[in-house]
């Protein structure tokens, strides 16, 4: 029974990976995922301020055994310093949405407020709104915003910080 459960249930997981900021490190990680058939739902990379490390935030999914292997395989890469997988994360993702100006913006303001949003930019015939929230709520927001007939949507992938 235990074995069967371990194999079957798909779980979403956020991993925060600290690696040496050097040439080719991203290809080592993306290659590891591709080569071993692991999923990447999203991936963000940026240098860790005032160090020579980079932080990757990887959102992945798989069964228990696969997730365990992902963490171990990430650790096994020589430039990997730390893989943070458990504990509590503050997870945020950003989305940008372009909406034509001829829409009725009734209720938009309240919606933006609910998703930590704001108007990021505007032009002669469009506005760009920006929201920041966890990935699940960004899903919801992108559903809800459809009533304004957006012409373009971009999401950033998650960033996470362990607390």
């Amino acid at each position, binding site marked *: 029974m235990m074995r069967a459960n371990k194999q079957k249930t798909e779980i979403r997981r956020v991993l925060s990976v600290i690696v040496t900021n050097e*040439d080719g490190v991203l290809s080592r990680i993306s290659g590891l995922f591709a080569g071993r058939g692991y999923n990447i739902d999203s991936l963000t990379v940026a240098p860790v301020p005032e160090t020579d490390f980079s932080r990757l935030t990887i959102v992945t999914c798989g069964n228990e055994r696969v997730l*365990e*292997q992902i963490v171990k395989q990430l650790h096994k890469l*020589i430039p990997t310093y730390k893989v943070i997988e458990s504990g509590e994360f503050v997870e945020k993702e950003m989305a940008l949405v372009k909406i034509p100006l001829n829409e009725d913006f009734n209720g938009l303001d309240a919606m933006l407020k609910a998703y930590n949003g704001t108007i990021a930019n505007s032009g002669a015939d469009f506005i760009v709104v920006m929201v920041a929230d966890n990935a699940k709520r960004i899903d919801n927001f992108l559903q809800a915003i459809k009533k304004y007939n957006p012409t373009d949507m971009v999401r950033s992938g998650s960033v996470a910080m362990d607390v």
Partner: protein
Amino acid sequence: MDLNGSQMVIEALRRENVSVVFGYPGGAIMNVYDEVYKQNYFEHILTRHEQAAIHAADGYARASGDVGVAFVTSGPGFTNAVTGLANAYIDSIPMVVISGQVPISMIGTDAFQEIDAVGISRPCVKHNYLVKDAKDLPRILKEAFYIARSGRPGPVHVDIPKDVTAQVAKFSYPEKITMRTYKPTYKGNSRQIKKVVDAIANSNRPILYVGGGAVNSGASELVREFAKMTGIPAVETLMARGVLGDKNPLLMGMVGMHGCYSANMAMSEADLMIAFGPRFDDRVTGKLSEFAKHAKVIHVDIDPSSIGKIVDIDFPIVGDLKNVLIDMMPLAKDKIDSNKYQAWRDLLQRYDEIHPLEYSDDKGNIKPQWVIQRVGETLGEKAIISTDVGQHQMWTAQFYPFDRPRQFITSGGLGTMGFGFPAAIGVKKAKPEKISINITGDGSILMNIQELMTAYESKIPVINIILNNGYLGMVRQWQTFFYDKRYASTDLSNAQPDFVKLAESFGGLGFRVETKEEFDRALNEAVKSNVVCMIDVNVDRLEDVLPMVPAGGTLYNMILEYKG
């Protein structure tokens, strides 16, 4: 001290006590070869193909336990080396391979003989480097050797652009190295070790499942001691042949697809599996849902990612097997009573008596198994046996009396045909006092046949014994069993070289063998000759490797006899 990049390579190799390098020159690595010419710290063996250079370095590493080193040039030189890297990686063999690259300014321009070498080698090596500045070279080379030999060993690839091999910079070679991001765990958790000893003491049918990690860790003596002290029977994987010693009464033989009946039954009926550095390869486990169904599993491995990858582990221990055994031994001595397992040992003994590893010898035809037994009887411990891949490899694993680790040199994980001959060249350089034998097939030998020239020129007297059945035998066997005897592209009998003349044309000695007497004579002459030899043995064409667990089958349900 200021040196150019090429001089740095030589100097680093000197400090790492490298005594032999295998390689092949070319445009992008010529600066390095110019320095090879000027130095006399190490010997350079010119192979006749880059793949062979890597396999030779690999064979050297397997036989000696030291890091094997090879040089290749950019582009095709490097791509030829890739099979060798992948082969060493999956078998955890320490190597440093240095490749030339086009100058930095030309990288990305599709220059002559340019290829993204680190991009290609990434999944085939433990780590790799593209050197962008000569000032980094001393540190990178130090790291390369350190990474190759530490933790779970593996090949490291260093790609050096041509302008970097000419660039002058300060050379200071670090004495010691610590890497923030790479710290293998050598010592096992002591609480876990205690728990494991208790689990063993409480078990009734324990089995030691010994893998290649026992060889890499240098733990063979301790494994033997542990088995003897506890009276726990053992099985060896292909990579662990020789660890327990052929005459060890506790050794149930090799496990897996072509393992012994008693070994596979031991795995199937055990209530506790004690895994010392194996990796639960599919060729060992067979069908996973039936594998070790009744057993709790202990797994000791230096690589955490190896633990729990295939099979759920009840007692994981991350650490170097040697250290773990040193810690386990005194506890085991107090708690484990070897008499407890007498009934279990008797049962396995009986399994072995019911279906021993055997073949039916024949007066007319030479059986391939006979050849291997004969080499074993004649040369025994004096020989180090390399093999290629296929039936001959399995028969060698089954029938050669391996008495110590590093005596059997074979491509385990990757199954690389063409490995044996160049590996045997590397073996002879590592252990010149031993007789280096390559047991091969008429298929495999042609995959690196050009190395006859290397062996002749560099006076490396490897003896190739071709078990010639005129087939790609292992594939033919599967076609017999599983493809209704449709022998697609496996019959080689209509097109074969004259192996005797072939050997002679490269300056070696050739023997054609049709009878047992001829074989004894040929082997005797080959050993005395001190030159590269080919003994072409005409063996029974249709002999199969048995017993056999079909791919995905269960260990307790072996094909013991083929009934056409």
